[in-house]
Structures are given as C-alpha cells and as structure tokens.
C-alpha cells in the first residue's frame, strides 16, 4: 500500500486520527458507510415526512422569534387597512405582524403551514405503503405503533399550531374541540375548565398551547422519530422478493455514497417543493378571518385536511342523544367526537396484533408482500381509505354543495348512507380484483407471456403465441412456483437483466460502445486505485 498525499488514506489518518483517539470512531464509520440499503421508490415516502419535519423545526424557530402567545386585548395599528382600530388579542396581532410587518414573514408562515400539510399527507401515504406491503408484521410491529403515534402527535401538534394565531377560523375549531371535551361523561366540564382556565375561551389557552406546540410535542415527536428511524436501522429495511433476495439478507446499494447522496438530494427536493408551493399558493390568510369572537362564524369553515375526517364524522352522525332525565345526558357529539377518535387511534395501533391473532402467523417477515397476495388485508385497507375519504369530503360538504350547486341536505344524506354502504362495496370489489390479479399471475407462470403474435393453424383455429418463462412440458405448461415477486407480463420485462430502454424522461437505448453492461463487457472494479 503506497501512502499518497492527498488521497483519502492520509486524510483519514491525519484528521480522523485525533477524533478516533477520543471516540473510537473507526469501526462505526466503516459499518455505517457500508450498510446496504434496498432500493425501491416506495421506500422513500417516509422520508418526505422526515424532511418536512426538519423544515418545520427550521421555519418554526423563525416564527417563534416573532410570535407573542398572549391573549391580552390590544387595538391593531399595523398596516393591514381593514383591521386598523379593531380589537384583538396580542397573539393575533403578532401573527398579523409576521404577515405584514416582518420582511419575509409571510413566506415563512406559509412554508411552515405547507410543510405541516406535507408532513401529515406523507405520513398517510407512507402508512398506506407499509400497510399494503405487510411491512408492519413481526419484528416491526413496534415501529408501526410508533408510526401511528407519530400521526396522532402530528395531528394534535398541527391543530394546536393553527389555533395559535387566535383567528376566527381556528377559534371556531377550538370551540368545537371544547364542545367535544365537554361531552365527556362526568369529567367533561372539569376537563374543559382545566384546559381553558375556566369558561371558554378564557385568557390562558393560547399561552398553554404555545408551550405544548414549541416544546412538549416537538420533543415527543423528535424522540419518537429517532426511535422510529433507529429501529429501521437496527432491524434493517424490508425488501421486495426477487432474485437473490431472501428473508435473511438485504440486497441493495451502500449507504455511502449512493444512498446518502440520494437522501440529501431528496431532502433538498422536498424543501424546494415546499418553498415553491409557498410562493405560488396562498395558505391560511388569517387577515381575512378577523380575530376570534364567539359571535362570529363563516360559512365554509373547515379544519386542516387531516382533521377534516373527524369534522365529517361529526357532521354526518345522526342526532342521537341519550338522556336519563333529569340526571344524565350523553351529548350526541360524544359518539363521533370521543368514541370515533378513540377508535381511530386504537384500532390502527392494535392492527398488527389483531392480524397476527387472526392469521396465526407469528414468523418474522423481512420480505414484503404484494397487495394482491393478501386480498383480505388489501380489501380492509381500501375499505378504511374509502371510509376516510367519505369522512373528509363530508367535512367539506358545504364547500362541495356551494361549488357544485348540490343541496346541502342531500350531501349530508349521501355521506350518511355512503359511509355505511360504500366501504363494504369497496372491500368486495378490491377482494375480487386481487383474486383476479393473482389468477393472472399464475396463469402467466403456467402458460407464459402473451406475445401478441397471432397464428392460424391449418384447421383455421386462431391462437396466440405465448413465451414460456421456463422449459415447458409437452402440453406447453411450466411448473414454475409463484415466488412472491413481480411476474413479467410484457415481453420487455423478461429476465433479471436491466430493461433495454433505461430512460426516465426520454428513451435511452443501449449503445454499443459506451455504457453497455450486459454480458460483462466492462471490467469490474477488482484491483488498483
């Protein structure tokens, strides 16, 4: 080994030597840099949430430097003309100041809010990926539960965050939250009084929300995110079945340089999308809402989208109130508000254990399942998504009614009936589709691919030429087992080699002289350097 100046060898020895003396970094550095990560686009979805969270911390710190969470009454004297001379809380005033008096304040507010929506949306998308591929099975049930907790912590963090400016829209939402709290049997009025320091809205709630929003919940989120990612590191990521992939290995590429560069690039991409959206699309224009006043409300009042499911449940739930006059009332909102939210937290948390008990499958699984191979789980997932979507749309049923000239009462009834009927239909349809796809896979494995070439035999019968996937027997059937991996359905997907056309944006056909990687025409890196 020649020691050359300027190469990484001497770099590592000079600078790294001092650090390693103190911290013993050499081993962990090698282990970390070499770690193999599997490669699939759907594994990147959780990272959108991680990067959004980082952006939230950065933009949130900026906002915290200017926001004043006080409910002290002041008169606005800033530059937004339609509110000059209007009485409001200091919280609302400081939020208006960030929007109109602080250079660049408005775009920071918007980036913070768009990053929140992206955080929650990407958690949902990531959760669906993990669910439909069975990645939550042993040994990863704990990580699934942590993920569900992250969603709900984000839910409350977002709700509290958009209530901080004490504007008309979020104040209405806070009133609804208070009404839901009041509905708790025996405890309701006490919990409400404890939270608000007396009657609604009181003088304390914004300041209490502030410390929860900038300290307690971010701490919890940060801790859980660290554990969440740490578990992925320790247990290693799952992978799709395929050639060379078993339950006991990971096939992919190294953490450094490949994976880390892609991560950094993707992080910058996520930041760029949020920044671009914050300049192109206005979000949460609090100056239009005025300060929160208990006598003021607007048509078309909705919470942020991740809360709209709950609002939809509350809108649709029938007027059922249980009374034992004159001693006891169970308010109608208790069912969708408290029980509904409770089930929405507990059922997803418990799902891995429920599935384990139901399927009696206690083995560890490091290979993913294609959704079609578990029709019951996939159907259940689609059912839940349909249910959730109906809830969200019903949460905005008055906006729908107004935009599309539909009767509001009809929207409510459509939601009530749809919520019960549509998920069942969705389950059935999904189940059948999965079975059909499974059947097609096995048919292709047995009879080969359809080539699209039609032939006619002397008897006049038309038949399609099929390309078998293995050596067929005399009847033209192959004995291939389904291995859980994608079965090629088109001629250009045959084999384990790279597809001939590799371009993403435009066609890149293989050329003779450069870049050809088939048949070992290029030298592998084996020596030198």
């Amino acid at each position, binding site marked *: 080994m020649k020691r050359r100046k300027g190469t990484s060898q001497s770099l590592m020895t000079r600078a790294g030597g001092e650090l390693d003396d103190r911290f013993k970094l050499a081993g962990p550095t090698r282990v970390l840099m070499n770690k193999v990560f599997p490669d699939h686009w759907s594994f990147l979805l959780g990272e959108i949430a991680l990067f959004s969270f980082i952006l939230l911390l950065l933009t949130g710190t900026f906002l915290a430097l200017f926001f004043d969470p006080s409910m002290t009454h002041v008169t606005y004297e800033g530059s937004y003309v339609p509110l000059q001379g209007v009485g409001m809380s200091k919280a609302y005033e400081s939020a208006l100041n960030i929007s109109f008096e602080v250079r*660049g304040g408005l775009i920071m507010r918007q980036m913070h809010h768009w990053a929140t929506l992206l955080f929650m949306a990407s958690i949902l998308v990531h959760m669906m990926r993990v669910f439909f591929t069975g990645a939550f099975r042993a040994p990863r049930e704990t990580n699934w539960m942590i993920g569900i907790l992250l969603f709900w912590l984000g839910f409350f963090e977002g709700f509290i965050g958009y209530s901080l400016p004490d504007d008309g829209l979020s104040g209405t939402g806070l009133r609804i939250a208070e009404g839901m709290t009041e509905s708790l049997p*025996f405890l309701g009025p006490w919990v409400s009084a404890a939270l608000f320091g007396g*009657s609604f809205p009181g003088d304390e709630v914004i300041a209490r929300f502030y410390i929860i929003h900038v300290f307690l919940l971010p701490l919890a989120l940060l801790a859980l995110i660290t554990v969440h990612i740490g578990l992925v590191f320790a247990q290693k990521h799952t992978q799709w079945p395929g050639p060379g992939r078993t339950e006991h290995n990971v096939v992919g590429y190294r953490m450094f340089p490949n994976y880390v560069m892609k991560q950094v690039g993707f992080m910058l991409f996520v930041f760029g999308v949020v920044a671009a959206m914050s300049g*192109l699309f206005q979000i949460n224009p609090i100056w239009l809402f005025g300060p929160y006043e208990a006598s003021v409300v607007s048509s078309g009042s909705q919470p942020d989208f991740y809360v709209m499911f709950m*609002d939809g449940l509350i809108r649709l739930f029938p007027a059922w109130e249980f009374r034992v006059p004159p001693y006891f009332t169970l308010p109608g909102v208790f069912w969708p508000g408290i029980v509904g939210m409770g089930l929405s937290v507990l059922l997803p948390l418990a799902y891995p254990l429920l599935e384990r008990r139901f399927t009696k499958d206690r083995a560890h699984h490091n290979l993913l399942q294609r959704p079609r191979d578990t029709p019951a789980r996939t159907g259940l997932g689609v059912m839940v998504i349909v249910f959730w979507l109906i809830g969200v749309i019903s949460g905005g049923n008055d906006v729908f009614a107004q935009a599309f000239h539909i009767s509001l009462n009809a929207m409510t009834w459509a939601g009530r009936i749809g919520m019960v009927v549509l998920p069942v239909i969705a389950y059935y349809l999904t189940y059948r589709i999965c079975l059909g796809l499974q059947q097609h896979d096995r048919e292709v494995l047995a009879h080969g691919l359809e080539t699209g070439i039609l032939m006619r035999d002397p008897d006049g019968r038309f038949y399609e030429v099929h390309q078998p996937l293995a050596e067929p027997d005399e009847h033209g059937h192959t004995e291939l087992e389904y291995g859980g991996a994608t079965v090629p359905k088109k001629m250009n997907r045959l084999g384990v080699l790279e597809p001939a056309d590799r371009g993403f944006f435009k066609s890149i056909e293989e050329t003779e002289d450069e870049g050809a990687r088939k048949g070992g025409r290029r030298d592998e890196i084996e020596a030198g350097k």
Partner: protein
Amino acid sequence: MSAHNDDRRPDEVDLSDPKLSRFDVYREGLRRDGIEIIHYEPRYAKPGTKVEKRMERIVASLFLGSGLFATLFVVAYIWWPWKYDGAATWRDPQTWYTPILGITLGLSLLLIALAVLTWAKKLLPVEELVQERHDGGSSRDDRRFAESTVDTVVDDMGLKRRPFLVKAALLGAAPLGLAAVAPLGGLIKDPGDMLTVTGWNAEKHNGGEPVRLMLKDGALVRPEMVATAGQITVFPAIEGGASNEFASAPTLLIRLRATDAEILRENLYPMYQDVEAMWGDFVAYSKICTHVGCPASLYEQQTQRLLCPCHQSQFNVIDNAAPIFGPATRHLPMLPLGVDEEGYFYAKSDFLVPPGPAFWNRPSLPEEDEQ
C-alpha cells in the same frame, strides 16, 4: 464476481500483506460486516467519455443555476418592495414579493437537488451488494449470559428473599409518584356555573337590574331598530358584554312577519309561554348552537330556518328553534324578552336552559325530551 455462500467464504485477509490494494482492504472490511459484492463497476466503461463529460457538465450547470437563483432570492429579499400599503392589485410590485421569494428559493433548492441526484444517478458506480441480516433474537449464549446476569443481580439485592422490603418500597414510592404529578392539579378549576349561567343573569352581572340588550358597538336596542324579516345580533348590556368574556351570551333578535309570529306563538313551549318569552313579533334565540357551540346564525328568512355552518344543524325558527336536520339534538334556548318604560329591550331572565353544547348533568326539560 460470483456470489459465495457462507460455507465457502475465504479466510480472513491478513491486512499486513503489502501486496494488498486499497480495494482489497475495502472488500475485507465489507466482508467483516457480512456484505458481499454482487457487482460493482464504473458507470461508464472508460473514464472521460463524451457521455460522462456531458453528465458532469449538466451537474455543474445545475449547481451553478442553483447558486444563481439563491442569489436572486437574497437580492429580492433585500431589495424588492414588500411593505403592505393598502389595497393592491397585480400591478403593484409588493404583491409579488412572496411569490418571487418562493419561486427563487424553490428553484434554487430544486436545482441543487437535481444536481446531487443526477450526480448520484449518473456518475456514481453501478453496484449491487448483499448484506446478511442477523434477524431474530440474540444468540443462545447471549441469552444465557443475560439470564444469569439478571438473576445474579436480583439475588444480590435480595429481592426474592425480602418481600416485605419490596412491598415497603412500593408502598412508599407510590405516594411519591403521586407527588410528582400533583402540581398539575393547579390546572384544575371548578367549572361551577360557567356552563349554566350566562351574561344575561341579572343577579350575577347587573346587580339585580334586568340586563338590557345592546349591539356590538354598545347601542341599546329598541324595537324600531329591527325591520320585519330582519335579525340582529345582541349582547348583554354589561361591561365587556360583547367580548369573549361572555362567550355563551350572543343572541339573535329576530322580528318575524305577523303570520309567522302567530304560528310561533301557537307552538311555544309551556315554559316559554309562562314567562311570555316573545315580545310582540320579536323572538330572541341563543346564537350558540346546541351541538358543539358555533354561532348558528344563518337566518333564512323565507324558509324560517336557522342554519349552523359548522355541522349543518338546522333549527325551525317558528317552532322554538327545535332542530329539524343535522346532528343537533336540542332547541336553541329562547331569551325571554321585555321592553322597559324607556322603550329598550331587556332580558326578563337568563336563558331557562343552559345554551350551547350539552354536558352530562345538563338539566333537560320535558319539552326537549319530546324531540
């Protein structure tokens, strides 16, 4: 490179061998982490080919482009006019401040992202490696070690031999745990009458004098101030009556057409008839929806409905504001109205039932139970 299976892995490489290349050392390091190379080759067959140079140029220009937009961002941030100065249209530059910042910053970040990603996708070697998972629990030996360690520690502490001590410890520690959370009790407040008494209560807020009705700006309300088929929002005429301090007090004063008022009079609940809650053709309903508390203030003067915009509960104005659609289950309480000698409206008493959302011990009256 063919894939080896575990049984035939070569022996450990001797790192002191001077003939080893850097790659050999690297590969040995991989092997010790359970990693094997399936293939690993440069992306371009020969270094310095046209394609590679083109990719390098692309990556370089992406980096430079990103820097350009970042500079534009900083320049715009400092020098573009941004101060809000009254109603502005797209012709005024300050309405473009936020969009320009977002677009320049967004493009800068996107371009540098593309630069890094293109570098990763087009210039890094093509590789595929396999790493062993060491899935499953610890080895049997480790488990035995752990068991014996825990058992020894427990034995050293004598926990099994001293149950009385253990119980005493728990008995003593439990109240200490309670003491740790006890300060949160400072949050606890007795709700008292916060849900049952509103700003209209004369004894509590006006020294026994009946509370008059006022508009938001403080003007006292006379019957002549409301047109037929009109409605206004009224508040108790006390200190801070229109503020959030009395959030359950806002009330809708409606002047019905004569025919509609007659129908309402026939439908009045006995408790409202007893106190003569209506005054002439006027009726006053609590604005706070009995579902979850938003102001139910969309008054449809032809269909005679009050619609709450939050969850679409609808109340029948000419039937004691009883709910006729949506999730609300109780009528909007009626404020008993009177007019004093000076011609101002006043509330004869507080609401007869608590306004707003229900709670477990809300007094419910027979009329409500019939709904």
